[in-house]
């Protein structure tokens, strides 16, 4: 299946139809995406601030990371569900958008980084920079549901 056919299939899928159906569908899914965002990036930020020695210094960082891990994972799950749902609402336009592509590359990098390097080493300072990069591009794609 080529990318073009995949995008067309996605745009005609029941999820895409639901997303483009009632006007409140997109904002509601977007809200869930934001809440997942707070879980994911927020908990990573707490661990990174800890690794930088800027908060919760009485807790060992490893333990803090372990305790926050279920919430970080919940954030990932919410975002990776709601994200593709929003993508399906206007798949072709997102696919050709340069900022969207940069966002996806940064996201992949940030996820791989967070769940590999950052899990093993004691210094996750770089992670913050990468997540920030990813996010600024996210906003640069400035996408809204087409009206």
């Amino acid at each position, binding site marked *: 299946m080529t990318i073009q056919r995949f995008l067309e299939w996605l745009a005609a899928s029941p999820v895409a139809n639901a997303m483009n159906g009632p*006007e*409140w569908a*997109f*904002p*509601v899914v*977007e*809200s869930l995406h*934001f*809440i997942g*965002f*707070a*879980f994911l*990036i*927020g*908990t*990573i*930020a*707490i661990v990174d*601030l800890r690794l930088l020695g*800027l*908060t*919760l*210094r*009485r*807790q060992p960082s490893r*333990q*803090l990371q372990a*305790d*926050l891990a*279920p*919430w970080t994972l919940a954030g990932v799950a919410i975002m990776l569900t709601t994200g593709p749902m929003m993508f399906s609402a206007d798949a072709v336009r997102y696919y050709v958008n340069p900022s969207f592509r940069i966002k996806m590359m940064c996201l992949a990098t940030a996820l791989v980084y967070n769940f590999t390097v950052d899990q093993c080493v004691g210094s996750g300072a770089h992670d913050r920079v990468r997540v*920030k990069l990813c*996010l*600024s591009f*996210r*906003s*640069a*794609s*400035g996408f*809204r*549901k087409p009206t």
Partner: protein
Amino acid sequence: MSTAIREGALLYPIIGGIHLLAIALFGGMVLASDVRMLGWGLRNESVTDLIEQFRGWKWLGGLVVAITGLLLAWCEPIKLYHSPSFWVKMILFALVGVHAVFFRRSVYRNTEAIDRAPGMPPVAKLAAALSLLLWVGIVLSGRLIAFDS
């Protein structure tokens, strides 16, 4: 300045991006504190540590969210004035303030007693549950502004 933010190709997304990053910082810490007080996790961390250590960061994050949010609202004052969701969001913000004042003595400045208590006091659970509801409501009403117009 309103036109500069609205019509500049990059300004709006950049301010929006900073707004989101500050939400992640602020929201993540609110979530962590609420999760702890609801007894859903983070049991190795004391309520006192979470509340006291996050206080400065929450203020910083909240301040950045408020300033960037104001700048974003400045772009479309008329649209927002006519949007019911925007007013719901503002009312919920006011309620966040009421929440903070209301639970200040019993919860947020009383964490050492909460940590000493055998179980999580109901008032702390209530404060956390209301906090979660308020923030979910704020996100939802914010996103529904687009639905109003």
